[in-house]
C-alpha cells in the first residue's frame, strides 16, 4: 500500500463518481426506475403523436381556421364552428348516414358472424380450414376489397347486376354509383364483407366457452334445437355480442378508406359518414376549424360508446 502511485490516488475520485453514476438496475430499489425507463419510448411516442395532437385538434376546432398551423399567430377562440355544426344540414346528414350504416352493417355482420360461427363450431374434418377461409376477408386490405366490389357492382358489366337481372329481382341494371340508395347499400356491402370475419371469430370463441353441461342437461329435458339456441346459446353469447357490436359500431364511425375509395361520400352526401365529413371539411374544402369540430364531436360520441369496453380491457390487462 505504501507504493500506491500518484496516478492511482488521482483515479479514485473518478472511480467513485463513475460508480455513483452507474445505478444498478438489478437491485430491487431501482427496479421501478428501470420499468419506467422501458415504458418511456411508448409514452413519448403516444404523447407526441396522439395526446398532443388531440389537444391541438380541440384547439383548432375552437378557432376560425381554414388551414391549421402550428406556432405563429393563433386566432381567438370562438364557438362559431360548433354553431355551424349544430345548424348545418351536412352534419345532420352525416349523423343520419352514420346511424343507418351502424344499424345495417352491425346487424348484418352479427347475423353472418353468428351463422358462420355456429357452422364452424360443428365438429367435422377440415374444420380449421373452414375457419381459415371464412375469416379470409379480414386479411384483404380495405382498398383492395373496395376496388373488387366496385368492379362487381359496376352498373354496366358488373357481376352483381348480372345476378340481379338474371334472377328477375330488377328490370334494369342498378346504378350503384349514381343512385343514392344503391350507393349506400354498396358501401354497406363492402363494410359487411370486411367486417363479419372479426365478429365470427369472436362469436366462435364465445360459443366454445359455453359449458357443454348446459346443452347436455337440456337434451335430457328434451329440448329442441331451437329451444337450445334461444335459452342457452343466445344468453351465453350476450356478453360477446355486446362487445362485438360496440367494436363494429366504433369501426363504422371511424372508417374512411372504404367509403372514400368507393363513392368519396357521394352521390350528394348519401354515403358521407362522420369520418368522411371530418376529412372532407378539412382536406377538400380546407375548413379545418369546422372539420376539427366534427371530429371532436365524433370522438366524444365514440368515447361514450366505448365506455362499456373500458371495464373489459382494464380487467384483462391485470
Amino acid at each position, binding site marked *: 500500500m505504501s507504493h500506491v502511485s500518484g496516478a492511482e490516488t488521482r483515479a479514485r475520485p473518478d472511480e467513485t463518481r463513475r460508480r455513483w453514476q452507474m445505478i444498478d438496475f438489478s437491485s430491487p430499489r431501482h427496479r421501478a426506475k428501470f420499468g419506467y425507463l422501458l415504458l418511456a419510448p411508448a409514452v413519448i411516442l403516444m404523447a407526441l403523436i396522439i395526446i398532443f395532437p388531440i389537444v391541438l385538434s380541440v384547439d383548432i376546432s375552437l378557432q376560425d381556421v381554414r388551414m391549421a398551423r402550428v406556432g405563429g399567430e393563433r386566432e381567438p377562440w370562438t364557438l362559431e364552428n360548433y354553431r355551424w355544426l349544430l345548424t348545418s344540414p351536412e352534419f345532420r346528414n352525416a349523423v343520419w348516414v352514420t346511424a343507418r350504416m351502424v344499424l345495417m352493417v352491425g346487424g348484418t355482420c352479427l347475423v353472418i358472424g353468428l351463422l358462420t360461427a355456429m357452422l364452424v363450431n360443428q365438429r367435422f374434418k377440415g374444420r380449421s380450414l373452414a375457419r381459415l377461409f371464412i375469416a379470409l376477408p379480414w386479411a*384483404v386490405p380495405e382498398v383492395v376489397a373496395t376496388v373488387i366490389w366496385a368492379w362487381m357492382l359496376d352498373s354496366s358489366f358488373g357481376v352483381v347486376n348480372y345476378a340481379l337481372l338474371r334472377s328477375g329481382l330488377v328490370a334494369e341494371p342498378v346504378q350503384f354509383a349514381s343512385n343514392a340508395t344503391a350507393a349506400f347499400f354498396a358501401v354497406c356491402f363492402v363494410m359487411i364483407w370486411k367486417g363479419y370475419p372479426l365478429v365470427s371469430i369472436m362469436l366462435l370463441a364465445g360459443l366454445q366457452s359455453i359449458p357443454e353441461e348446459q346443452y347436455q342437461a337440456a337434451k335430457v329435458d328434451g329440448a329442441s334445437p331451437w329451444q337450445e339456441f334461444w335459452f342457452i346459446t343466445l344468453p351465453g353469447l350476450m356478453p360477446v355480442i355486446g362487445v362485438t357490436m360496440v367494436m363494429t359500431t366504433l369501426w363504422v364511425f371511424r372508417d374512411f378508406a372504404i367509403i372514400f375509395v368507393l363513392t368519396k361520400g357521394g352521390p350528394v352526401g348519401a354515403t358521407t359518414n362522420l369520418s368522411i365529413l371530418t376529412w372532407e371539411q378539412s382536406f377538400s374544402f380546407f375548413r379545418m376549424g369546422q372539420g376539427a369540430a366534427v*371530429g371532436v364531436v365524433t370522438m366524444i360520441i365514440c368515447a361514450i360508446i366505448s365506455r362499456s369496453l373500458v371495464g373489459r380491457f382494464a380487467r384483462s390487462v391485470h
Partner: protein
Amino acid sequence: MKRSLSATIGIYAAVIVTCGLLLFPIYWMFITALSPRTALREFPPRFWPDEPQWGVFHELLANQPFGLWMWNTVLVAVATMILSLSVSVLAAYALSRHNLRGGQGLGLFILTSKMLPATLLVIPLFAIFRSTGLVGSLWSVILAQSTLIVPFCTWMLKGYFDTIPPELEHAALVDGCSPLGTIFLIVLPVAAPGLAATALYSFVLSWSDFLFARTFLTTSEAKWTLNMGIATLKGEYITDWNVIMAGALMAAAPIIVVYLVLERFLVGGLASGAEK
C-alpha cells in the same frame, strides 16, 4: 354423439356454399385479372376465361409505377413493424414484470386507438408534420401508423410475456446478466412465436393503411403506397378492370399469405377481444 350421414353431408354442403359465397369476390378478382379486355364487356360475364392472360401483370408493371408503390409500401410496413415492435417490447416487458401504475393506463391507451377517429387525428398531425417538413416523407406515415399500432402490440406482447416464468430471468440475473440483457437474451428468444405473430400483425395493419398515406403523401407521387396507387387506378382507368384487378391481386397476395401462415396465432389474440 353420432351424427347421421345426411346431417354430415348437410354440414359439408353448408360449409362449401358459405365459403363459396363469402369468398366469391376474391375468386372474381382472380378471374377478372386473367381475362382479356374484350371479355370484360361481355354480358353475361364469363366465369372462367378461355385463355388466362398472364401478360396483364407485365402490362401493369410497364404502364404504372406499380413497382414503386410496392417498394414504398414494403418500406413503410417494415419500418412500422420495427419501430412499433421495439417500443412495444420494452413497454410490454415493463408492464409484465414490474407492477407499475401504467397497467390501467394501457387499457385506456388501447381504447384510445379504437375510439379515436383517425380522420380527426390527421388534422393536427398534418399541421405538425408540415411545420417539421415531414409532409411528403414516408416518415410521417411510419410515425402515425406506429403510434396507433403500439398500444395493441403492447397488449398482445404483455400477454405472451405473462406466460413466461420470471424464474428464467432471475437465474440469469444471479449469473450476472444485466436487466437489459435478460430481455434480449432470455425473454425474447422464448417469446419468439408471440413476437413473430405481433410483428406480422403490425405489418398487416401497416399494409392496409390508406388514410395516412392519402393525407400526407398526396403531393409526392414518388412516395405513394400501393393503396393510394390502386385507388387512383380505380378513379382513372375505369375501363381497364383487368389491370386494376391484377394490381389488386398483387397488393393483396402478400398479406393473404401472411394471414394463412399466421392465422393460428392471430386468432388467439383477436378472440380475446381486440383490434379491427
